[in-house]
């Protein structure tokens, strides 16, 4: 038996995309205890949102919480504030929002999967994934004018329309992307060495997933069918035929497969949404100031994102609370490490696709 050695992992680590620190107590190769620190990038966004910004442009602040799920934060905020102001976005706007949200999910999932492949030692698969992701990024840039910060939401609608030509272009590119994604999917599914590094690692049972309130693809990989898109009404997901994607294996591999399945499903959703894009306005006018409180749940790429908004009839909101998916996945992540090998720590962390700037805000 070896001695206990403390190994730090983060806050700066070659495999970590964002600053989070884990202190592992290890015995030989096996991790016996974990300490976690998540607050490196706390920027006081909740405070700024209730002091410095008016409700009309808080969203520019909130979307900059995170680059990957900027559209989620815009969604969470706008669906809430629209309830407080009692306005309803027109149908066409809702569909455009849905399209952008799903495109965002695709690019986030593709990168997350590629990242897992990279730390599992499969550099080539990483490049394939990121190459495909570029198609989506170009689409987003085309529709919204920016690669990361789309700023397409506005109170009562969207800021830009999708023209006929753009719609055709999106369709063409997405069909191309689907072929490529299916090819990469095959690698994740059948590749022997990738399986060795990921199958059976960091298993979460369905019971544990429920006990720890796991959200997002991590929960769905354990067979827990939870998805805010099905559990909360915010965009017309029913109309485009949304279905929850689940696996039952509950390991790193299953999380990758769930994400890949969701990418394909998202492509289908977008194609259906574009075919059925309703005609009409993209924006309605609103009056008044936000008053009252509201709870919103939206589905970010990483899981369910929760927003609480409280207004008091003035221009500045009284409370904005953001609870992001990674925030509720950290507790189980901490438990999972215990008993695993240190060398597997990187794929485990990255299979959770952690977003620290969301968590710390």
């Amino acid at each position, binding site marked *: 038996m070896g001695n206990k050695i403390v190994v730090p992992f983060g806050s700066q680590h070659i495999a970590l995309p964002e600053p989070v620190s884990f202190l592992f107590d290890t015995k030989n190769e096996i991790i016996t205890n974990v300490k976690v620190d998540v607050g490196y990038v706390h920027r006081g966004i909740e405070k700024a949102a209730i002091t410095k910004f008016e409700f009309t*442009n808080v969203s*520019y602040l909130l979307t900059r919480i995170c680059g990957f799920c900027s559209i989620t934060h815009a969604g969470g905020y706008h669906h809430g504030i629209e309830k407080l102001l009692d306005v309803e976005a027109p149908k066409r706007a809702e569909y455009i929002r849905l399209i952008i949200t799903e495109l965002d999910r695709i690019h986030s999932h593709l990168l997350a999967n590629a990242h897992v492949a990279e730390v599992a030692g499969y550099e080539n698969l990483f490049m394939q994934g990121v190459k495909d992701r570029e198609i989506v990024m170009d689409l987003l840039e*085309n529709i919204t004018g*920016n690669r990361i910060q789309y700023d397409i939401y506005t109170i009562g609608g969207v*800021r830009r329309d999708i023209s006929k030509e753009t719609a055709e272009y999106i369709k063409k590119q997405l069909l191309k992307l689907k072929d490529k994604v299916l090819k990469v999917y095959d690698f994740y599914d059948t590749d022997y060495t990738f399986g060795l590094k990921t199958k059976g690692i960091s298993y979460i049972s369905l019971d544990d997933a429920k006990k720890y309130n796991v959200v997002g693809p991590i929960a769905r990989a354990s067979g827990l069918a939870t998805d805010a898109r099905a559990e909360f009404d915010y965009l017309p997901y029913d109309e485009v035929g949304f279905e929850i994607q689940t696996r039952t294996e509950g390991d790193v591999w299953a999380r990758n497969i769930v994400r890949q399945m969701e990418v394909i499903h998202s492509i289908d959703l977008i194609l259906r949404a574009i075919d059925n894009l309703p005609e009409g306005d993209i924006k309605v006018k609103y009056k008044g100031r936000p008053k009252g409180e509201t709870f919103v749940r939206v589905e970010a790429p990483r899981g369910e994102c929760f927003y609480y908004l409280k207004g008091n009839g003035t221009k500045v909101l009284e409370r904005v609370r953001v609870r992001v998916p990674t925030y509720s996945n950290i507790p189980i992540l901490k438990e999972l490490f215990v008993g695993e090998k240190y060398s597997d720590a990187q794929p485990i962390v990255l299979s959770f696709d952690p977003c620290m700037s969301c968590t710390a805000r």
Partner: protein
Amino acid sequence: MVKMFIESFKNLFSKPETVKYPFEPFPEPEGFRGTILYNEELCIFCDKCENVCPPGAILFEIVDIETNKREYNYNPYLCIYCGACVDVCPKADEGCLTQANTRTKPLGEEVVKDKKLGYLMNRITNPKEVEKAWSELEIRAKESREKYAEYKKQQRMKKRAQAQTKKENS
């Protein structure tokens, strides 16, 4: 195995997926949200753009208190390119405030010069000074506003006093 070799050969001679930026230009698509351009002749100085801008990248400085002459200043290196200012500008359709679909050059050897970028950017030559000059401007703009408000107040008082004396005289 054979398939693999064919694939690698194909890849050897295929075009690279990446753009060789900065040696090649990186193409922006139509409708890209780029630099904010301003046209002073059309502006009605409503200050809406200044008030809406989330990071405060637009500042009007009152240079002449008596005539309320204002100077538009814009900091492209603070701007987050959200386009909110163009959305609120009442004269945007006429081209008072527009968003170009090219990106601003990075702050390298020299400061970009364009009349449409506002006064401050055209007055600075050293790129290292942009940040300092901007923070000085922030203070100056605030002070000029206070001074203007003070001046207005005095004017009003003067007017009231005049009206009073008129009343008394009549």
